[in-house]
């Protein structure tokens, strides 16, 4: 057996972290424009901010993956400028990444021991020692239910997330960075216990999340990033949610009164009807979507919302159940057929499934209507310009971006182009999966406007968002999904974040 695993370094090794005026830009996109805060010994410090506020870039800088353009980072009073991940790790900084960095084709044990395997006879990697080490590690982290011998690709998302965290913890960090660690976790208490144990032993923890409740549970102080800037560090005990929101989004949280003001359009004609829809992860969902209606979907990570939206977008198979569009039953097995049936889909991963980085913004937008633009078999450029211009105007996308390669645009503008594309496709029903992920506040407002506009003209929208406030703000009514089923609905005055939280955690009706 290998030497006993001790996760906690001696207290005297604890370090403080000082970040001072760090900036970073990627080409034309500025990710960080002056971030400063400090993290004390043994502190669990929250880093708050909306998607795209610069949290991930900061994580990458601290992990040694990218170098800042300017500013200084000091760890325990020493200058900290790691040139590689391993250098950061050697200095005592270890990270659990948001986009999980596990290798799917290797076992849990191998992943936990990368890049250096436990060696047995003849200095060769020993499966037995690796697995023993991994088992001990997992047991110590209270994750003994995960088998060290299993392939990572066979684990559930939550299990993967836990392995990722265990791996970060296993390097006995003096500063642990957790980037959205609970995104896939059904039971965050597991993580809280680990974090508290580490903090008690003096390890600093930078805890990145936009879930205020979690942050309040773990941290005393938190720094808010917005638009690549550190807006301020707050004492969480003395800050109200509204204040923090204001710092994160640059304004107060929406007044609930707004939501009640929207009429519920149950009397409008049916747009999309689902009857007992089933498939992987979706366990019998029925719902009616009316014309002119925005229906929100609230759910914790991994409750079948991704699968449901992909089914409606034609990107996942529907095993059983019926879909009808405007009363007519439809069947589709691909996004193309879904589009023809009148359902347009904006997927979750913009870079992976949304935009074409190598093409111009105009080509990205005009793709669905190319068939209509043909004259003598060739694309009529004049009409293309006109159509694209019209769509770009709808989403408030500046004309000068249209001719550029879309890779040169900021994430927000890319998202606008993506939405312009589905609008241009002529679909009257939109299925939007987290359409404001990773975009800035201004773009969010634009997208909200587009969605409202679209429904005002008779379209219908099914919307999922990770941000409950957005759902409350935008939807006419909101459904909660739990384990692949609809477990509740809130509308009108009852549509509040608290209500959604209790519904989405399965404490509904």
């Amino acid at each position, binding site marked *: 057996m290998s030497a006993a695993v001790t996760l906690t370094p001696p207290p005297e090794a604890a370090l403080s972290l000082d970040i001072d005026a760090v900036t970073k*830009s990627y080409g*034309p*996109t*500025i990710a960080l*424009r002056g971030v400063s805060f400090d993290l004390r010994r043994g502190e669990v410090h929250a880093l708050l901010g909306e998607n795209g506020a610069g949290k991930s870039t900061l994580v990458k800088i601290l992990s040694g993956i990218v170098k800042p353009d300017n500013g200084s980072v000091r760890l325990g009073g020493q200058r900290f400028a790691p040139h590689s991940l391993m250098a950061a790790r050697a200095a005592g900084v270890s990270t659990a990444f948001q986009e999980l960095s596990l290798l799917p084709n290797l076992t849990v044990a191998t992943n936990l021991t990368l890049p250096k395997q436990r060696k047995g006879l003849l200095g060769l990697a020993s499966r037995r020692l690796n697995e023993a080490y991994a088992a001990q590690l997992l047991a110590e982290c209270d994750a003994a239910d995960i088998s060290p011998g299993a392939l990572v690709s066979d684990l559930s998302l939550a299990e993967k997330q836990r392995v990722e965290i265990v791996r970060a913890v296993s390097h006995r960090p003096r500063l642990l960075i957790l980037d959205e660690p609970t995104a896939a976790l059904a039971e965050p208490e597991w993580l809280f216990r680990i974090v508290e144990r580490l903090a008690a032993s003096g390890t600093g923890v930078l805890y990145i999340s936009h879930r205020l409740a979690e942050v309040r549970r773990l941290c005393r102080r938190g720094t808010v990033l917005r*638009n690549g800037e550190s807006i301020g560090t707050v004492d969480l005990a003395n800050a109200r949610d509204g204040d923090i929101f204001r710092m994160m989004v640059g304004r107060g949280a929406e007044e609930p009164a707004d939501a009640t003001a929207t009429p519920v359009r149950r009397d409008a004609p049916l747009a999309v009807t689902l009857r007992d829809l089933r498939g992987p992860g979706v366990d019998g969902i029925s719902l009616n979507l009316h014309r002119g209606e925005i229906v929100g979907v609230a759910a914790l990570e991994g409750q079948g919302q991704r699968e449901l939206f992909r089914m409606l977008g*034609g*990107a996942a198979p529907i095993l059983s159940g019926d879909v009808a569009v405007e009363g007519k039953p439809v069947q589709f097995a*691909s*996004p*193309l057929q*879904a*589009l*023809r049936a009148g359902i347009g*889909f904006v*997927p979750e991963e913009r870079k*992976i*499934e*949304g*935009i*074409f*980085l*190598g*093409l*111009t913004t*105009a*080509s990205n937008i*005009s*793709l*669905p209507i*190319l*068939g209509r633009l*043909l004259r003598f078999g*060739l*694309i009529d*450029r004049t009409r293309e*310009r*006109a159509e*694209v*211009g019209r769509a*770009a*105007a709808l989403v*408030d996308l*500046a*004309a*000068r971006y*249209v*001719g*550029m*390669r*879309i890779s*040169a645009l*900021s994430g*927000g*503008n890319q998202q606008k182009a993506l939405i312009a*594309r589905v609008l241009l496709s002529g679909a009257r029903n939109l299925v939007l999966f987290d359409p404001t992920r990773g975009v*800035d*506040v*201004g773009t969010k407002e*634009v997208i909200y406007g587009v969605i409202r506009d679209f429904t005002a003209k008779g379209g219908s929208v099914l919307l999922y968002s990770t941000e409950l406030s957005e759902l409350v703000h935008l939807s006419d009514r909101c459904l909660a999904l739990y384990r692949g089923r609809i477990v509740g609905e809130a509308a009108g005055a009852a549509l509040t974040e608290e209500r959604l939280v209790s519904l989405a955690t399965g404490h509904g009706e």
Partner: protein
Amino acid sequence: MSPPADTRGLRRAGLGSDVWNAIALFGLTALLIIASRWISSGFGGWEQTKAILVLSSFVVVVAFGQQLVILTGGLDLSIASVMTIGGVLTFNFVGASPTALIWGVPLILLVTAAIGGLNGIGVVWLRVPPFIMTLAMGIIVYGATLGITGGTPRGQASPALSALFTASVLDVPLVIYFMLAITICGSVVQLGTGFGRRLYAVGTNPAAAYIAGLPVRWLTFLTYAISGASAGLAGILMFGYAGGATLTMGQAYQLPSIAAVVVGGTSILGGSGLYIGAVGGALLLTTFSTVISSLGIAEGWRTVIYGLVILLALLVLREELYLWAGQLVARPVPLRQPGEPAAKPDA
């Protein structure tokens, strides 16, 4: 607010570095032709240019399909055999008859497109890696050609097809006009049609193309069919050039077709590159082999130099270099000034 879209941008079509690449290739070709006067007095003139254009016509034609396949992230290793079967079928069935030519050539293009289509079916629906599918198909087609002909293709030369190479208008052989037409048509198909546009989309991001509602599988299938047909056409041309067909006639064009496409700036990973670049690549490589074969050095050295030139082209024609050069020429449009709000709605 409804501003007219930026026309300048559309015309650039976001393929700036590709265009630069093609221009650079044509420039290098011209330079090489002019510089080769130092090597031999016969070089550097119209006669040499003509010879190079004629000789590169086969690669130019076959590179069209090869490039489309590479655009979708695939590779076609069957073109040598498909070229051969195209030439052999023309030799055997069309021969000297001008009437047979009229129905025979389209029919042979259909047959070769069908062979390419089989590649497409294997790659798209059976999910065999393109490398293996087309390699195996090449072996199969070669075997079939061998079996059908019993080892000896037999037939007659076609005066009409040979005239492409022997007849000239304004001192330019007909085949050069033909090649020009192919280049223009190919570029128009790539840049001007919905098919071409969708193909780039599929090549740069197949997952997004699927979600965006493009018939990804059909598009990919089609590229293989087109590659088959373009190899078939190259085979027919080759038959016209040589006045006969042998079972090895396509072999010399397998690697050059890939080399021309790659040197022409097309990423082997798919999604970027222009046909005109591949044409430039074909011209440059043909010119180079013409020049090098007239150097009085051992074949080994010629081969070494040829390989080094491909390597050099790869090193020089990288995108980063164009970006860098582009920045020297024109200051990039600042997308966002520091301090400016992230996305101020444009007034």
